[in-house]
């Protein structure tokens, strides 16, 4: 009788052990299911990573074949930069397949020089402005001269009047040449802190896209990429047709580690602009030679 009692106790222990074993099995199966589910949900991310690596590898081997996916480009082509920034998600970025070209032809790799320093751009812009002014002045002088020629001093003007005119011509010529000299003397020190502060004040007053772009460049040169991104975006808001605003924005993005986003933005802009500089920049970013 006692042995049966003892046996019953053993049976209770046995049941507990069996239940624990079953619980362990179920827990293990549950964990396996969760792990499978997690792996399954991460497939897209893994794929993207894989594609990204693949593209980088391809770009390194065959830079000429770097292309941009037409679908994404078509969707984004007419949007300004600001909209792209809002709508872009890293996970959505799908890069181009190697056989697809924008216009069906193989694209050329444009080797770009390092980004032009701010001072040079400033000079360039000022040169253009001053040239225009000089040209205007010259044209004005020429007109005056033409008029003078037409006037035929000997015929219509007195000697005193003629001398006055000649003096005027000389003075205007002098002023034109002085203008040119003055422009050449402007010293733009883009790397200084003062320059940024000055440009900020200037932009505050002018709300000019060019000033914002200069600020973006200045910040980019100082490796303050979030600031350069911000100012490039401001410049683009004011004038979305400036290549530089797109480029600085994309480069800042790339420097901030958002390479896919940068590529997507540049791709869409390239579709619109067909700018070789943009294409070259795309290649640079893809091959990580930025």
């Amino acid at each position: 009788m006692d042995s049966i009692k003892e046996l019953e106790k053993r049976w209770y222990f046995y049941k507990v052990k069996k239940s624990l074993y079953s619980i362990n099995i179920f827990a293990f199966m549950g964990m396996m299911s969760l792990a499978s589910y997690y792996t399954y949900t991460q497939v897209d991310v893994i794929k993207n990573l894989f594609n990204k690596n693949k593209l980088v590898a391809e770009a390194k081997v065959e830079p000429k074949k770097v292309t941009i996916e037409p679908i994404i480009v078509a969707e984004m082509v007419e949007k300004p930069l600001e909209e792209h920034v809002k709508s872009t998600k890293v996970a959505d970025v799908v890069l181009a397949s190697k056989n697809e070209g924008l216009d069906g032809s193989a694209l050329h790799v444009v080797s770009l020089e390092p980004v032009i320093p701010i001072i040079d751009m400033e000079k360039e812009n000022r040169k253009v402005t001053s040239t225009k002014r000089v040209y205007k002045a010259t044209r004005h002088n020429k007109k005056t001269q033409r008029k003078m020629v037409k006037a035929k001093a000997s015929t219509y003007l007195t000697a005193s009047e003629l001398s006055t005119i000649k003096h005027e011509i000389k003075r205007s010529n002098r002023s034109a040449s002085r203008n040119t000299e003055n422009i050449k003397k402007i010293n733009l020190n883009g790397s200084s802190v003062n320059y940024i502060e000055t440009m900020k004040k200037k932009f505050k007053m002018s709300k000019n896209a060019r000033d914002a772009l200069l600020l973006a460049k200045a910040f980019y040169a100082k490796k303050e990429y979030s600031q350069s991104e911000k100012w490039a975006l401001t410049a683009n808001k004011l004038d979305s047709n400036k290549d530089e605003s797109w480029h600085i924005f994309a480069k800042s993005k790339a420097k901030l580690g958002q390479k896919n986003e940068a590529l997507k933005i540049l791709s869409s802009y390239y579709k619109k602009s067909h700018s070789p500089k943009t294409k070259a920049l795309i290649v640079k970013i893809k091959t990580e030679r930025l």
Partner: protein
Amino acid sequence: MTSRFENVKNIFIDSVERNSYVELESAQHNYKLLEKSLEKPLKMILLFGKPGTGKSMLLNKLYHNLKESREIHYFDAPILSEKEFLRRVYEAITDKAVPNELRVNFDGLLRFCQKLKGEREIVFLLDECQLYSEALMEKIRLLSDTRVIKFVITLHKTENEDVIAKQHFKTRIWEVIELSNASEDDLYIYIQKKLIQQGFVEIGNMIRKKDIKFIYTYTYGNFRESNKFLYTLFDIYEYFDEVKPHKVSTKKISKKFLEMAALKLGYIDG
């Protein structure tokens, strides 16, 4: 008050009683084979199988069925002493008791058997022959050569058992009947028949196929092991019927009791 399960458990006590023999299809087939072999001019017939496959039961049944119709003797327990064995054989043949102070001379017995050739055919059923010495087995062989004595012997099929492989046995055993464990269905029929034969129809109805499956998982259809299992099971039933009768269902066999029986017999670890 005696529990009804006490009587039930007793029918599963391991025995070779004739009335506890259960007629199964496989057993019937083996029995017919054995009967036919006895009709043939064979010197020796070997019943071969693992312990608990029903060899002794078959020999017992054969003895009881044929003892009225032919000269047949059954040594259910092995006789290990050569002197005793020869004495028993002589007494069986001559129907005369040998005084204790005398012993049977084997050569004399052999000559006596040779004289009986053509007159008599005596069958000896020897159980558990794996326990017999080699010398005694050699004498059995020589006795069978006289064609007066026919031996039906049973052997356990074990890993180390090589008696059958010995040359002197190989040349003489002309019929080998191998017995195996019961199938799941056979085991079900065996238990049902056993219970019904003894009048426990209600208990028989309690046992379902899945209970048999459970038992079979551990006993592999071995009759001796299965009997032991059922004995233990009804022993547990008996206890609960007396101490906690509210825990005993008469509709079906309790899974708990089945598991307890398996635990007790060491089939599962507690």
